[in-house]
């Protein structure tokens, strides 16, 4: 077994953390396609090497060399008019199966019902770096638009040739090509019949401008929604294979523990298999209860090692900051020290964020099957090709002997980048000689999955009496560098990220460090506004005074207008707060109203204004923005992993509070649809404004400034 099973303590920085891209070995050729598809029309999108590297592999040294010209996506139009589109992206609840289908329908001018997406299957779909970093919409959406528009041109050309007319006069619409002059019409299926056409296009076909979209840009219900409301959809834990048995893994008592001895004799039973490989121990049995019983009978002795605990976490992070450049060069301009000396209002504060868990409702799970030396694994992951590589390395087999299939998955939120369950299931399947299903328990999730990094952020700021920012210093310890730079105009700045060897396994999360950095920045902006002489300045006015970025100004103004900022005073015990920022080309501003009731904080109302360029599916986008705000409530108010000496203490939903129906405020969403700007992804950024807006509102209501996330795990203390 490789080290993949052990905890990894490196920060996985969104798209930076990934291993170099795999050279894709598929040799594009007409013959291969015809073998696969039998006939019809196929269009393949070639992404040139430079563009591929730029799109998905920033800061990856040596990446360009290892990345050949890539196939980005392909599309097949069958002889009966069915359209199948292949993409390596995974559906994890962010609704891209629907938004990508919508994009294809728009460009191809074909009915939605005729289009099927094959997603995230390493044997069928082109290589993809992974579904993370809000890259699907800016990248894959465009790629699928390109193949779809090329296919549309192909069928028009076929019709023109058949009718011996100029293609320019023909119209493609609703799955048909029409000749308005000659009164002829043929469906796409009829045009594809008897054809064996395969075309490669490079990403440069003209695309419809957003202003001309007719299908995209409008609400569209989930394309396979009926499968979900009837329980028909097969998630990974629902997959069943002939002869399949159930697996369980023996977990160490704490992080860093190593196995000293193992006595398996009590677990012996018919059809029960115990597998040991180094510190990895697991069992398989014909049913899950039998596997649990066998696991409970294993007698293992572990050697534990002392590890930090959550009560000393923030001191630990400060004391163990790394030097040596892994955090990148600090950003520095002017002199913060000089500017602070002459500032008329100053701030020096420390903010902290706790580790939190993604807690996707579908736990990590995999079904693994070995057949003829080939391994097939069904698993919920955001990186099917990454997991294929992990499996190939773990079992020392070539990647082409491994197939990873990702059923549409019960959420991830950045938490399913790794293939832990896949490797474990495959190891157990090898031992059992039968397919194995392994579904992590909630308790396993809460300890052995990775966490959103905890962090300490130190801020110093200075401003003139009129509210002009003059100094800004910002140090983030451990939680990460995304959105660490301030969008405000400040002549003197020093901004630095300090990596730390994390005491818990940590990794990606929805918007990752952008949440922590926005919490610290937007809370301290509020503090500075209030610290200005003569009774302070309105926090929104203070922000706008120091802000040139037009798109960010626009979302602040839109949120403020919808919220009624400055128009009314809050009721007794209530307060208003506002915060905003930029991340991954999305601009967000959130205004919040809170009520302090019996020393508890209740979020009453949230208004979020969002600009992610041209909007593709407003309904899906609103759903994401609502969901981001509601998920953000947990991390803002009460979610925190508590641990002691390498052991997670609150490893169940009964001990780890997540937002529920009764926590949800009224949420209003304002979309600034910028048809002139390419679409950015939107699943992550809307989460960043909630925590600071709520914290600022709590201060407004109570005069108490909360500088730690979660802010009120035990209520608001007087």
């Amino acid at each position, binding site marked *: 077994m490789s080290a993949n099973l052990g905890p990894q303590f490196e920060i996985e920085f969104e798209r930076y953390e990934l291993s170099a891209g795999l050279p894709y070995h598929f040799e594009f050729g007409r013959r291969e396609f015809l073998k696969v598809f039998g006939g019809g029309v196929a269009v393949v999108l070639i992404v040139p090497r430079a563009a591929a590297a730029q799109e998905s592999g920033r800061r990856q040294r040596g990446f360009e060399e290892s990345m050949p010209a890539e196939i980005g996506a392909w599309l097949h139009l069958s002889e009966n008019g069915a359209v199948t589109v292949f993409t390596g992206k995974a559906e994890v*609840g962010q609704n891209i199966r629907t938004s990508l289908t919508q994009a294809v329908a728009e460009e191809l001018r074909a009915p939605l019902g005729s289009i099927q997406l094959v997603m995230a299957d390493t044997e069928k779909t082109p290589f993809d770096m992974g579904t993370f970093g809000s890259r699907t919409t800016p990248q894959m959406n465009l790629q699928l638009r390109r193949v779809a528009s090329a296919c549309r041109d192909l069928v028009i050309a076929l019709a023109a040739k058949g009718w011996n007319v100029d293609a320019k006069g023909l119209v493609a619409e609703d799955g048909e090509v029409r000749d308005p002059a000659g009164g002829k019409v043929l469906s796409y299926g009829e045009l594809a019949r008897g054809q064996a056409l395969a075309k490669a296009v490079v990403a440069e076909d003209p695309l419809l401008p957003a202003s001309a979209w007719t299908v995209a840009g409008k609400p569209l219900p989930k394309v396979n929604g009926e499968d979900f409301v009837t329980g028909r959809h097969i998630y990974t834990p629902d997959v069943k294979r002939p002869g399949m048995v159930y697996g369980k893994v023996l977990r160490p008592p704490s992080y860093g523990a190593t196995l000293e001895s193992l006595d398996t004799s009590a677990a012996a039973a018919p059809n029960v298999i115990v597998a040991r490989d180094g510190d990895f121990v697991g069992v398989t049995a014909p049913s899950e209860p039998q596997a649990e019983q066998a696991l409970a009978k294993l007698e293992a002795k572990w050697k534990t090692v002392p590890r930090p605990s959550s009560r000393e976490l923030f001191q630990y992070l400060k004391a163990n900051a790394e030097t040596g450049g892994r955090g990148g060069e600090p950003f520095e301009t002017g002199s913060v020290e000089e500017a602070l000396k002459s500032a008329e209002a100053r701030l020096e504060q420390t903010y902290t964020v706790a580790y939190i868990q993604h807690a996707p409702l579908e736990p990590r799970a995999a079904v693994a099957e070995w057949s003829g030396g080939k391994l097939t694994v069904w698993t919920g992951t955001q990186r099917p090709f990454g997991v294929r590589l992990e499996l190939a390395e773990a079992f020392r087999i070539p990647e082409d002997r491994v197939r990873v299939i990702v059923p549409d998955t019960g959420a991830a939120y950045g938490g399913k980048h790794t293939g832990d369950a896949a490797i474990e299931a495959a190891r157990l399947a090898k031992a059992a000689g039968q397919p194995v299903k392994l579904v992590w328990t909630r308790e396993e999730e809460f300890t052995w999955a990775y966490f959103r990094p905890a962090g300490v952020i130190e801020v110093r700021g200075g401003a003139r009496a009129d509210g002009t920012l003059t100094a800004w210093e910002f140090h983030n310890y451990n939680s990460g560098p995304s959105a660490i730079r301030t969008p405000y105009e400040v002549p003197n700045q020093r901004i630095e990220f300090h990596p730390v060897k994390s005491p818990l396994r940590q990794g990606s999360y929805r918007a990752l460090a952008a949440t922590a950095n926005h919490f610290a920045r937007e809370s301290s902006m509020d503090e500075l506004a209030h610290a200005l002489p003569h009774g302070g300045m309105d926090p929104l006015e203070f922000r706008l005074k120091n802000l040139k970025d037009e798109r960010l100004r626009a979302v602040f103004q839109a949120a403020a207008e919808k919220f009624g900022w400055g128009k009314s005073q809050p009721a007794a015990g209530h307060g208003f707060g506002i915060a905003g920022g930029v991340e991954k080309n999305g601009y967000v501003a959130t205004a919040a109203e809170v009520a302090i009731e019996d020393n508890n904080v209740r979020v009453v109302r949230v208004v979020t204004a969002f600009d992610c360029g041209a909007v593709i599916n407003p309904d899906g986008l609103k759903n994401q923005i609502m969901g981001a705000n509601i998920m953000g409530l947990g991390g803002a108010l009460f979610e925190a992993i508590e641990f002691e000496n390498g052991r997670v203490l609150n490893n169940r939903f009964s001990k780890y509070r997540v937002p529920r129906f009764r926590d949800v405020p009224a949420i209003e969403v304002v979309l600034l649809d910028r048809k002139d700007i390419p679409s950015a992804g939107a699943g992550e950024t809307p989460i960043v404004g909630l925590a600071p807006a709520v914290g600022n509102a709590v201060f407004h209501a109570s005069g108490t400034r909360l500088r730690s996330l979660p802010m009120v795990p035990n209520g608001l203390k007087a």
Partner: protein
Amino acid sequence: MAKITELQVNGARCPIEADEATPLLVVLRDQLGLTGAKYGCGEGQCGACTVLLDSNPRHSCNTPVGKAAGHSITTIEGLAANGRLHPLQQAFLDSGAFQCAYCTSGMILTAAALLRVNPHPSEDEVRRFMNGNVCRCGTYPRIVEAILGAAETMAKNKS
């Protein structure tokens, strides 16, 4: 330990073979292939495993199969009648009341139990009744909208 050999599920008698202490969820999923009920926590905290036992919502993850035997069990697979979606299923579709949808079966069945005892719930009553069901994607507002919409549809269908 006593063996259970039969369950009444979705109107049919289903032969099974399980110790009485086995969680109902495991039997439904692994023996009867009814995978609409999901494992989410194993302690009745998230509601993803909800099924109806004589029309009452139960967490099948911590309901021993022995306690379910002899009762009428409804899973999400048995909610649609005569090939037509239940008004709640249709309302969840119409409202887009899910993202990853892993919680959806449990949400719909819990809501079905609510509407049976309270056909015209207020928004607040919906939130209170549904509070034991977690949607980690945060689609709560749409779920409330869907349940209120279904209540209206069902009232219309009756009149």
